[in-house]
């Protein structure tokens, strides 16, 4: 089936998310849609899937114009979508999720679960998914849930399959498997729209690449184009690879974690006997695929999660067992991975958010009264210092752009003398201009002599910032390596392969094949 989008425009208030986008997806093609976070890729696909109504423009299937009033219409027309956040009902079984919306029924509207199970088994067998139709989805790991999503789309005989950032939750090796699945699907005649911002994957699998920037198509590229070509198309200018930073002036190792273990509510160890240390004036970057215990590690350090055993020592002070309040008091600056959920109160003003963890201490508080003047002066100072683009200290933080919101969080956490600075995903969903600024501030904090821990799932960011890299896999640290380590080795380590073995494997591969890098 040939799918064509013509002049799709969609705005949200003053923001134009899609600006006259044209796109043609030929049958049996893998068409990559490449763009930064916030470029408008998902909006476009949601328009195509009928979740949003375009302000103008047309959708054509096999050269016939179609109007999708809702996802139901899109599904009926043979378009399936695997959303970045899985659209699976957690308490339903696999079979129930797959059948939802186009249920097999017996007479009288009764569900025919047997038919649904059979369908799941068939499709699962065809692609080697190994799905149990009666497993409850919330008990399944994310990788398996993604396969359920794919089966769900295939069960409806999707001719065009949209995959929205499907690799965000996968290890490089799982990603390879997904790429293999995508190829199989292409062979069976399914067209695939592959939305991503990861250049390597695009080059590995795409037949055609369309690059989107700020809501508009900025060009097409061949998969043979080099990564830096693609990158500069994507961000709009040649990206300077590599941050100018001085070599670290390593001081004393003041932050030491020993055998730290954190248990999930079900008793499983999500952080498993982790030990490492960070020196003053050094950045330790924690790399790994999302969901391998990085989040829990940082949250345990701050005391947000209780740790089962081990020790966390800062300047000789034991932090384990402290409340977040006490941990902050001990000199930790903490940038959580999701600023909108954990870092900011979105309907509070910029000024209020800038004192969110200091509001009850002098000079902002006198007894239990707030000193609004001091809070405002602080805000004015930080806004100037961090170049936060806002209408003023009183503006609601929720109305700022992602980059400026992140600057508010960093400004707050870096506004006091720190003994340890932890930042998770410091530039996720942030525009390129702000990324550089934020990175420079982080390095500056390092140069002040603060031990810094960065957690990032973006390998580029890890390599750029790190003085040392700790790779996490399934709650444990696979190894701590220098930033000069090759991406292939890092990728294998992110899949749990120890450093030495990873080096050996990379050697073997490059010897035998050119690899799909």
């Amino acid at each position, binding site marked *: 089936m040939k799918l064509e989008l013509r002049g799709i425009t969609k705005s949200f208030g003053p923001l134009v998310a899609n600006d006259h986008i044209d796109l043609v997806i030929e049958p049996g093609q893998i068409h990559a849609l490449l763009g930064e976070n916030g470029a408008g890729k998902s909006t476009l696909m*949601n328009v195509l*899937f009928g*979740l*949003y109504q375009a302000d103008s423009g047309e959708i054509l299937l096999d050269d016939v114009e179609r109007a999708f009033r*809702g*996802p*139901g*219409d899109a*599904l*009926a027309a043979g378009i399936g*979508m695997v*959303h970045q956040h899985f*659209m*699976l*009902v*957690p*308490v*339903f079984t696999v079979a*129930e*999720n797959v*059948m*939802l*919306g*186009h*249920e097999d*029924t017996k007479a*009288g*509207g*009764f*569900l025919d679960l047997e038919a649904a199970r059979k369908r799941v088994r068939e499709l699962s067998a065809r692609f080697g998914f190994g799905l149990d139709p009666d497993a409850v989805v919330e008990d399944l*790991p*994310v*990788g*398996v849930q993604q396969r359920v999503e794919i089966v*769900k789309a295939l069960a409806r005989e999707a001719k065009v399959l949209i995959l929205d950032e499907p690799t965000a939750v*996968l*290890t490089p*090796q*799982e990603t*390879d*498997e997904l790429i293999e699945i995508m190829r199989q699907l292409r062979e069976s005649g399914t067209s695939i729209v592959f939305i991503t911002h990861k250049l390597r994957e695009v080059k590995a699998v795409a037949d055609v690449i369309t690059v989107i920037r700020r809501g508009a198509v900025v060009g097409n590229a061949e998969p043979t184009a080099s990564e830096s070509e693609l990158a500069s198309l994507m961000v709009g200018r040649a990206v300077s690879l590599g941050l100018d930073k001085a070599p670290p002036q390593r001081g004393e190792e003041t932050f030491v974690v020993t055998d730290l273990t954190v248990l999930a509510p*079900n*008793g*499983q160890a999500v952080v498993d006997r982790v030990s490492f240390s960070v020196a003053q004036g050094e950045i330790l970057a924690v790399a790994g*695929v999302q*969901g*391998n215990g990085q989040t829990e590690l940082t949250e345990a350090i701050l005391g947000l999660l209780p740790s089962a055993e081990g020790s966390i020592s800062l300047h000789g002070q034991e932090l384990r067992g402290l409340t977040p309040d006490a941990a902050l008091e001990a000199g930790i600056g903490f940038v959580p991975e999701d600023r909108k959920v954990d870092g900011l109160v979105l309907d509070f003003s910029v000024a209020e958010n800038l004192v969110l963890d200091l509001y009850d201490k002098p000079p902002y508080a006198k007894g239990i009264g707030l000193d609004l003047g001091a809070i405002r002066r602080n805000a004015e100072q930080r806004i100037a210092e961090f170049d936060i683009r806002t209408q003023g200290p009183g503006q609601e933080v929720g109305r700022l752009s992602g980059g400026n919101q992140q600057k508010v969080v960093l400004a707050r956490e870096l506004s006091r003398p720190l003994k340890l600075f932890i930042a998770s995903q410091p530039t996720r969903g942030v525009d390129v201009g702000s990324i550089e600024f934020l990175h420079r501030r982080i390095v500056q904090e390092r140069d002040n002599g603060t031990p810094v821990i960065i957690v990032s799932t973006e390998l580029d960011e890890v390599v750029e910032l790190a003085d040392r890299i700790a790779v996490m*896999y*399934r709650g444990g640290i696979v190894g701590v390596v220098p930033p000069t380590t090759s991406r292939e080795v890092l990728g294998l380590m992110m*899949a*749990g*392969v120890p450093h030495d073995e990873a080096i050996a*494997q990379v050697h073997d591969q490059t010897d035998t094949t050119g690899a799909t890098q």
Partner: protein
Amino acid sequence: MTAMAAPATQVATVTAARSWKLPITLGVFGLLSFVLFGLLGPAGSVTTFGISTGADLLQFDPVAVPTRATAIVLSVLCLLLAGYAYVRVRADQPVGRWVLAVFGVLWVLTFLVWAVADKSTSIVSLLQGSLLLAVPLAFGALGGLLNERAGVVNIAIEGQLLTGAFGAAVLASVVGNAYIGLIAAPIAGLLIGAMLALFTVKYHVNQIIVGVVLNVFAVGLTSFLFSSVLKNDAATLNTPPRLPTLPIPLLSEIPIIGPVLFRQSIIVYLLYVAVIVISIALFRTKWGLRVRSVGEYPQAADTVGIDVNRTRWRNVLLGSMVAGLGGAFFTIGSVGAFGQEMTAGKGYIALAAMILGRWTPWGALGAALLFGFADKLQQVLGVLETPIPNQFMLMLPYVVTIFAVAGLVGRVRGPAAAGQPYVKG
């Protein structure tokens, strides 16, 4: 390529923390009954239970038992159950839900034996009355769960019961036929349901607020109409006939069970039908699957082409009709005439029954029966002048519910999306 296992394909060996809550709770209650009702119970007293009604074919003599000895025996059985629960938990085995149920029955029986010491009460009329009092609670809870399963919190059950009671009384009175009231009641409940849906589904107003305010609205509207219209012509407008008792042949002659379950009016039989139908529809049909998906994860439902807000509208309306039907009980199902604010908070108990019944029709029925029983017991004990102040019996449903939501009687988990308006995108 080296195909590594996905990070979490490996199934975790789950060692869920043992919960000692159940054995401890059972043990404490068992000991309480052992000491209070057994050891400290009246010595030499006799408790008499009637087990037949005058209308039964087979007549049985009332059963008389020695109060203290019986209470001690029953308490020991309770403690044995507590001990069983302890053993199971220690061995990391699940404790069957039957344990709690059997324990509850035994415990209440112990209490009853103690409370009725030297007096006599009819078990049949106690159970019959419990079922009857449970009717509006069960209908209300069913109406509530139809809403919540689709993701709309229904605090307005109280208002739906009240308008249902009003509608049933007025129309049955005007037409002179009680069965007409059964048609009017759901329609009256629908009025509140439509407002609930309008404000919560269409205008995204907070569901709890709308529910609370709609209850005020229902009280205001029915009371206003009552005092400005019904009072002026009570003979025509507020003298409804009552639903007659319709004994089911044969079934109603079974000892004890017969008169309790099958010698009732049609509204009780409708309740049986409603529980069975809603239970099957919710868990066995396409409609039910879709409804539940909307209540759990509306975005997911939307992406497979289910119209979330339409589903919610439909369920809110349906639920309000079911609750409204339950309202008919207050007038044509029992006293006949409508009175101001006659539901007296029963809608909130129905809400509690829904939660305690874990959002399932059978559970809701069970919880409603429990609350109905507490209510009836309170009435019976009030007449018998037992040492327990009846205010404490009246409190019971509410206290039990607090314990339930606080997780002391097992965790309750409702539909995940209940309370959240669905806004696309």
